[in-house]
C-alpha cells in the first residue's frame, strides 16, 4: 500500500506491506538508523520516537496507522545548525550514555515527558522521572546518570515555556 509519513519535517512516501512497523519504515524506508529495535514485546523503548510530539514505541505502531502524521526521530531533535536539544546536551554533560543503544529512545522519551508537563506544575522530581522512564530499559548505566540528565534538562529555561 502507498503511504506517506512526515519524518523530521520531510515527507517520506513509499509502497509498503501493511504489516510494516513504523520502526521498520523509519529505519529501512527513510534510512534513519538512529532508532533501534531492542526487543519484541514492546518492553524496552529503544524504538521510541515522537508522533505529533508525543512519545510512542514505533515497534508497536503500523506505518499505515500513522500515514499523514508527523514523526520526529533522534536525528530530527537537534537544530538545523547542529545545536543539540537541551536533553541531548544534558545527556552529554552528565554521562547519560555508555553503549548508546537505548539512548535515542531515552532522549525521545524524556523530551516528551518534559514537554508534556503543564507549565505551572512543580519541577519534576527524580521519582517522577523514573516513573516516566518505566518504558525504557538500559543495561549499561543503572539509570542513575540518565535521571540526573533528565533533571538537568528540566531546569533549562527554554524547556519551561
Amino acid at each position, binding site marked *: 500500500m502507498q503511504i506517506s509519513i512526515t519524518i523530521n519535517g520531510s515527507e517520506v512516501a513509499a509502497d509498503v506491506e501493511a504489516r510494516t512497523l513504523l520502526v521498520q519504515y523509519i529505519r529501512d524506508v527513510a534510512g534513519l538508523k538512529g532508532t533501534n529495535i531492542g526487543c519484541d514485546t514492546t518492553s524496552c523503548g529503544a524504538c521510541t520516537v515522537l508522533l505529533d510530539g508525543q512519545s510512542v514505541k514505533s515497534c508497536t505502531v503500523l506505518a499505515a496507522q500513522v500515514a499523514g502524521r508527523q514523526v520526529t526521530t533522534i*536525528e530530527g531533535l537537534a537544530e538545523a545548525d547542529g545545536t543539540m536539544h537541551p536533553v541531548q546536551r544534558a545527556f552529554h554533560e552528565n554521562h547519560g550514555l*555508555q553503549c548508546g543503544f537505548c539512548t535515542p529512545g531515552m532522549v525521545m522519551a524524556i523530551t516528551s515527558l518534559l514537554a508534556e508537563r503543564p507549565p505551572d506544575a512543580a519541577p519534576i522530581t527524580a521519582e517522577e522521572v523514573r516513573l516516566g522512564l518505566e518504558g525504557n530499559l538500559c543495561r549499561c548505566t543503572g539509570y542513575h546518570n540518565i535521571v540526573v540528565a533528565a533533571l538537568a534538562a528540566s531546569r533549562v529555561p527554554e524547556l519551561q515555556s
Partner: protein
Amino acid sequence: MSILGNRVLRREDPKFLTSGGTYVGDLDLPGAVHLTFVRSTVAHARLASLDVEKARAAAGVRGVYLNADLGVAPLPPGMPMLNQDMTRPVLAEGVVRFVGEPIVVIAADTLTDGADAAELVVIDYDPLPVVVDPEEALKDEALLYPEIGTNNCFALQFGHDETLFDGCDVVVRQKMINQRVAPCPLEGRSSAAEVAADGRLTFYASTQTAHGVRDSLAKALAVEPDRVHVISPDVGGGFGAKGSVYPEDVIVAWVAQHLGRPARWTETRSESMLGLGHGRAQVQEVEIGGTRDGQILAYRIDVLQDSGAYPDIGAVLPFMTRTMATGVYAIKRGECSSNSVVTNTVPTVAYRGAGRPEATAAIERAIDCFAAEVGVDAAEVRRRNLIGAGDFPYTTPTGTEYDSGDYLRAFDLALEMSGYDELRREQRRRRDAGDKRQLGIGISTYVEITNGIPEGEYGAVEVRPDGRAIVRTGSSAHGQGHHTAWSMLVSDQLGIPMEDIDVIHGDTDIVPRGVGTFGSRSLQSGGSAVHLAAIEVVDKAKALAADLFEAAPGDIVLDAHGGQFHVAGTPALAKGWAEVARAALDKDGEPLMAEVDIPSTGSTFPFGTHVSVVEVDTETGSVELKRHIAVDDAGRILNPLLAEGQVHGGIAQGVAQALLEEFRYDGEGNPLTSNFADYSIITAMELPHFERAFTETPTTKNPLGAKGIGESGTIGSAPAVHNAVVDALSVFGIRHVDMPLTPERVWGAIAAARLGD
C-alpha cells in the same frame, strides 16, 4: 596539571546523541541476504525428520541449509580444559540439546521473506529424557552425550580435608543457589559478512574481541587468519556474553562464501534470550566455622556449575570462584572444589563478574549466617576478620595473591556514609512496634580479581604530519568510553589536545593484534599499552626534534601543555608535533609511531564495601530498595565520570539478580522467561539514586596504578541487597532465602517460618 583523574566528558557522545551509533544491524550492505534461524522448540530430542522443501520454494528465499550442507566442523568447547568431546555442531546434527538450538538457516532477500519461510519448516522430534536441574545432571542418569557417558564436563577437585573445621566452636552450613540470569545487552547478537573477489572475508561483529573473532572464524572456516578481516562497529553492550564466536556467526560467514552475496543476521530478543549465553547458575554448599567471639577460622565452598548444553567458558568459572573464595577475610583454612555439568539449557558464559559474584555472594551470606549464629553484629564480624592494610601482598588459602588493599578504610567509609547506627536504631523501632514494613540493612565487603586471564595487550600511537595523533588499541570498547580515556592518556604525554586525537579499535586490518575487552582488563592492559606507546613516541620525537634543532636529545624538552618541543633554555624557539612528524617521514619514509605489546601485567584486586537498605512489606513479600551505598576502590582512577558509570551499571545488575531476575525453565526444559515481558529485567523504578565514593589504593602491577572497575559494582551489590532482605526477615527467625527475593519467595519464607512457630 595533568588531565588524568579529571571528569572529562566523552568524545564519543555527540554522534550517539544526534544520529545514533552505528551497530552491525545499521550497516548498509547492498544485496545482502538476511538469515533467519529455525530453532528447536524441544529441550532434548532426536531430529526425526526435517522438511524444508516448502521453505526452499518460498518467495525471496535464496537458500535453506542444514548442518550437513555446511561442511563446517563442530566447534570445540569454549575452553581447552573442558571435555573436548563435547563439541557443538554449528547447526543441530541429528539431535537437539536445548530449546533455542538452531537447526535450519534460511537465507532470503528480506527479513520478512525469511520470517515467513521459517513458518513453513516442519520438524518432527523424538523426545529424549530431559535434565534441567544440575543436581540431577550430576547423577548421570539422563545423558546429553550418551557416547561420552557423563554430564560432567569439568571438575576441580582439590581434596577434602576432614580436619578443616577442627577447633571451631561453631560451624554453619548452608546450601545456596546463585541463580541463572540472562545478560540482556540492549543490542542482541548481530553479524554480517561479505566476501571479496579474491575470497577474503570481511566480517562485521558485535563483539568484545575483534581479534578473537578473527582467529576463531578462521579456524572454523579452515582458512588462515589473514584471510579474515573483522570489523567491530559500535556494540550495544556485551557484559561478557559477546566474548567469543557463536555458531550463528560461523554460518553467516559460510553463507556469504557459499552464495557470493553479503549475508547478515540480527537476532530478535526472543532468540537472544535463548541463544546469547547465560550467566551464573551455581549450586553451592557452603560451610563456615570459627570461634564464639566471631573469628573465622575455616571456610569451604563446593560448587556445582550448570554449563548448559554445550560447555563454554561458563563451565570453567568455578575456577574463578575458587580464586576468590575467601574474599576479604584473613581466613587461614579454605577449600573450594567443583563439578561442572551439562544440562538441556542455554550454555553459560562469563557474564559480568564471571565466577566472582558467585564467590562473594556465598561468603558474604556465610558471614551473616555465622554472625547470626554466634550473636555478633554482622558488621563487627567483618571488621574483626578483614585482611589488614599492612598485610599485602596477601596469599589466600586457595593460592591467590592479592596485590594491594585497604579493606577497613572502604568499610568504615561505607558504614559512615550509610549512617549505620541510625539505621539500626530505626530498625529497632520498627521491630519493637511490630511494623508491617520492616527495615533490613545488609553489608557486602568484597574483593575481586581483574585482568584474571594472563594476557597482554597491544597499543600504538602515531603522530601524523598534520599534527593529529592516531591511537590503535587492541581493546574493544562497547560503551566503556575508551576513546575518551585513551585520548586522555595520550594527550597527557604528548600535549596534543584530545580533539586532535583519533582512537581506533575493532578493525583487525588497522589494529594488527589485540586481546579485547572483558574481565575488567582494558585500562590496566590496553590503557597501559597506549600509555607506554605514548611515552615511547615522545622519546622518538625528541630524537627527531634534536636533529631539527641540531641539539642533543637529552637537551630537548617537550612542553606537554602546548605540545611543543624546544631546546632547554630557549622555549621561545619551539617546534610542534606536525613538524616533527613530517621530519620522521622525510628521514626514512616511516611514520612517527610507537607500538607496544605489553605482556600480561598480572591480575589486580579491586575491593570495596556496599551497604543496602531495604524495606520489606511483610504482608505481601514486596521488597523496596530504599538506599544503596557503595564504596569501591580500583586503584588510581583515570576518569571518575567513566568509572562511576561503570559502578552504576554494575550495581543495577547486582540488584537485579538479588531482587528480580532469574532465567527459569520448567521440568521439561521449556523456558518460562524468554522475552523482556516475562524476564524481569530491572528498570529505573526499582533502583534508587546511588550513594557512592571511591577510595584509591594504587597497585604496582601496571604503569597506571589502576585496577579494573567494570565488574566491581555487580560483585559488591548483590550480596548487600541479599543480606539486607534476610536481615529484615530475621525477625521471623529466617536465616537464609535464595535469590531472587521476589514477593513470592519472601512471603513464602515468612509463611513457612510462621508455620514453624
